């Protein structure tokens, strides 16, 4: 069994006030986690707690083998487009924490940044201005930046938000391929269960309004009964060609 990378032990998440009751979550090396829930459910707070950006209200976040190196991919619209930065400039930021005071990125840093831009399919966009790239290209640049930091854990906050179907499919296929090639641990937040379930081998359902946090292997989480309780209507999940087909029936009461 792979080693435990982090354990959230009886953790209550929130910004000084608890969002929901305490829960325990164990994440092992090489797992791909998808955290799903409606808007404002507490998904981002959970991820920020794991990243150490928001301290838990109570409980402990334990890294048995030391704090792993996190590569974080924020929602692209959180970044200010006024910065005159190229895709390479943005990607190089993934190397900044390695630079001592007064140091400039080395040729090796630049090579790593270019490699990762190439890996996400943006070799031609290296010197293009980041703010002028398409939404999908911006998202891929942020992924390249996170990967350029040589992370132990890749953390993505709603990576497919605001994308059209081909864009979403590109990003999810890339993540799947990346995991197959590198076995990197991935934590991903998403709105849509079907897209997250297509990549994740573990799922977490989170909803602060219902004081709900459930997590476990995808197969057991995608149980019709559990999904129907989560969404408050009959929901079915079927696996077909390694993809999950999730259907919600019409709400006859609402």
């Amino acid at each position, binding site marked *: 069994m792979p080693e435990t990378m982090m354990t959230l032990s009886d953790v209550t998440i929130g910004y000084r006030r608890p969002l929901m009751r305490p829960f325990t979550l164990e994440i092992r090396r090489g797992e791909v986690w998808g955290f799903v829930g409606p808007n404002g459910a507490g998904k981002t707070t959970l991820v920020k707690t794991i990243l150490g950006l928001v301290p838990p209200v109570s409980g402990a976040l334990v890294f048995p083998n030391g704090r792993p190196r996190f590569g*974080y991919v924020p929602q692209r619209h959180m970044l200010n487009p006024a910065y005159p*930065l190229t895709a390479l400039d943005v990607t190089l*930021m993934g190397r900044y924490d390695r630079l001592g005071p007064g140091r400039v990125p080395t040729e090796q840093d630049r090579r790593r940044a270019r490699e990762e831009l190439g890996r996400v399919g943006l070799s031609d966009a290296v010197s293009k201005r980041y703010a002028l790239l398409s939404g999908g290209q911006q998202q891929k640049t*942020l992924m390249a930046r996170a990967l350029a930091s040589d992370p132990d854990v890749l953390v993505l906050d709603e990576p497919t938000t605001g994308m059209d179907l081909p864009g979403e499919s590109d990003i999810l296929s890339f993540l799947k391929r990346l995991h197959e090639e590198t076995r990197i641990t991935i934590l991903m937040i998403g709105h849509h269960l079907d897209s997250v379930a297509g990549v994740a081998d573990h799922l977490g359902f989170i909803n602060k309004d219902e004081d709900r946090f459930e997590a476990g292997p995808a197969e057991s989480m995608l149980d019709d009964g559990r999904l129907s309780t989560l969404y408050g209507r009959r929901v079915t999940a079927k696996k077909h060609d390694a993809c999950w087909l999730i259907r919600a029936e019409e709400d006859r009461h609402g």
Partner: protein
Amino acid sequence: MGESVSFWQNWFVWRDAMIVSVLCAAALGYLGVWGALRKVVFVPLALSQVSSVGVVLVFLVSDLVEKRTGTPLGLDPVWGSLLFAVLASLYFAKAGRESQEATAVAYLISAAATLILMGFVRADLHDLSSVLFGNAVLVETAQIAVVGAAVLFVALVHGLFYRRFLFASYDPDSAGAAGIRVFRHDALLLATMAILISVATRAIGALPAFGFTVLPALASLRIGRTLGQTFFLASALAVLSAGLGYYASFALELPTGACMTAVAALFFIASHAVRR
């Protein structure tokens, strides 16, 4: 032509003022880009006002000490100014990015406090107004050393932490996730802004100091293709504004600080005609 000859003939009159103005302009133009990118263009104004409280407090304490002991305290008001400016930068770093209300509150409270406290300072003892609000024409030679030291400090800090400032400003969450201490870097960046703006306000006046911080930065962000180019352009436009503004004030016998700001405003307007 006549003004031009007399301007150059009288170089010893304006030499110190020009050196100080150019030094302030170069550094404020650069720092202003950070302010504009972080969407905190009014923070320098509030920092300048908060640092004024420190100046007045030093005068008040000096008065009290002199009354009690009969000997002056001998503390330069610049230290009070710097202390309050640094405290204010911590406050703004804590207030975070959504700090418009914090900026307005800090500005108003410190403006009111400065004016009220000024009433308690003996008017015959010091020329408080010139220390508080500066004067781009009457610059003492000693100001060159003060401003020069502040500019060197800013250059040193930014030389050391430029990339971390950039990451923490552009994407604080990702920087924090990468292990960069965002609050510390935000506070340090704002402290450099605070120190320079408080020194520059005392040296050349509040209007040109604020003008050099905002207008060249906004103009250069419209023109610059890269971040390096943007920083360079902002500094260059601010320096040009200082030089041309000073000359215009001399030639047309107009207020110096206002002329410098007006030239910076002209550059800003002209930047709208340039396509990036």
